């Protein structure tokens, strides 16, 4: 069975529910791997989960990006291994530099946790393989540093990306998620692992993250 690594840094806190979604929604084998022990060639896909790492001291994702796991993640990137960065994982991927742009303090300068909706554009790659162009997914966000910024948003939106229906944090072009390598690498601020089972979403929202995990499961078996 394909194996998915979920990388844990000191202070990481969304690894368990992510593992639960990998096992029960993707139906894949997954493991939580301590950052300093992570070797890319043992895995078929890699997830950098959400939460915080190193308390997000300095700024979110900064200290985690100093880990030697970053070298392995860069190698995985070169080798076209699917990588998903959720929230803090997205922040770390931008700090490492394999996803473009940066995640700055929310416009409100406060942490925001709420259910939101995103629209998916140009879906491609293993993570978005089951999602149609223009599909709207609901998921919760929970972040203080989620305001996406880049000098050239026009480059981001040529590729697979996600757009907030209602911009919660001041992100440029309402960008909620970005991708590289035709969607093999995806980073997003909303939390799909908290929206993978029907009872995780209150009335008015659907578990919009499930398709991302199911997509990975299908893709790793059949290709994408």
């Amino acid at each position, binding site marked *: 069975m394909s194996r998915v690594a979920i990388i844990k840094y000191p202070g990481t806190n969304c690894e368990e529910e992510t593992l639960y979604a990998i096992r029960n929604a993707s139906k894949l084998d997954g493991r939580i791997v301590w950052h300093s022990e992570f070797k890319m060639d043992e895995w078929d896909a890699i997830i950098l989960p959400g939460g915080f790492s190193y308390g997000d001291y300095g700024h979110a994702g900064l200290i985690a*990006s100093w880990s030697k796991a970053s070298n392995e993640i860069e190698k995985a990137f070169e080798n076209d291994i699917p990588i998903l960065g959720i929230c803090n994982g997205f922040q770390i991927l931008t700090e490492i530099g394999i996803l473009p742009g940066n995640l700055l303090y929310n416009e409100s300068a406060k942490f925001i946790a709420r259910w939101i909706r995103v629209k998916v554009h140009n879906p491609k790659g293993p993570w978005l393989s089951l999602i149609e162009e223009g599909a709207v997914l609901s998921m919760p966000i929970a972040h203080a540093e989620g305001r996406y910024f880049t*000098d050239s948003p026009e480059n981001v939106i040529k590729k697979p990306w996600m757009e907030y229906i209602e911009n919660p944090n001041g992100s440029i072009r309402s960008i909620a998620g970005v991708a590289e390598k035709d969607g093999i690498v995806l980073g997003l601020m909303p939390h799909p692992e908290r929206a993978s089972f029907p009872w995780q979403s209150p009335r008015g929202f659907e578990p919009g993250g499930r398709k991302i995990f199911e997509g990975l499961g299908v893709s790793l078996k059949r290709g994408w």
Partner: protein
Amino acid sequence: MSIYKILLIVSYKASARDPEGETIAHELKSLGYKEVIKVRVGKAFFFDIEAKDKEEASEKIKKIAFETKLHNPNVHDIMVISIV
């Protein structure tokens, strides 16, 4: 070698905007502090660092900040001040 105190300040570039600074400026004005024209916020790092002299200390901090991405030139401005 002795120990120098260097202050590094990291703030957002104008293109990235500084909503928190804008909010504070706005609030201060509405509280009646009309003399406040503008506010920008940033993060301050006070370093105690070993170096030959003040200049080397500052250079070292700039180098560390750049290499470790304590600031990201795409979005951050920095300021380095040597303190006595």
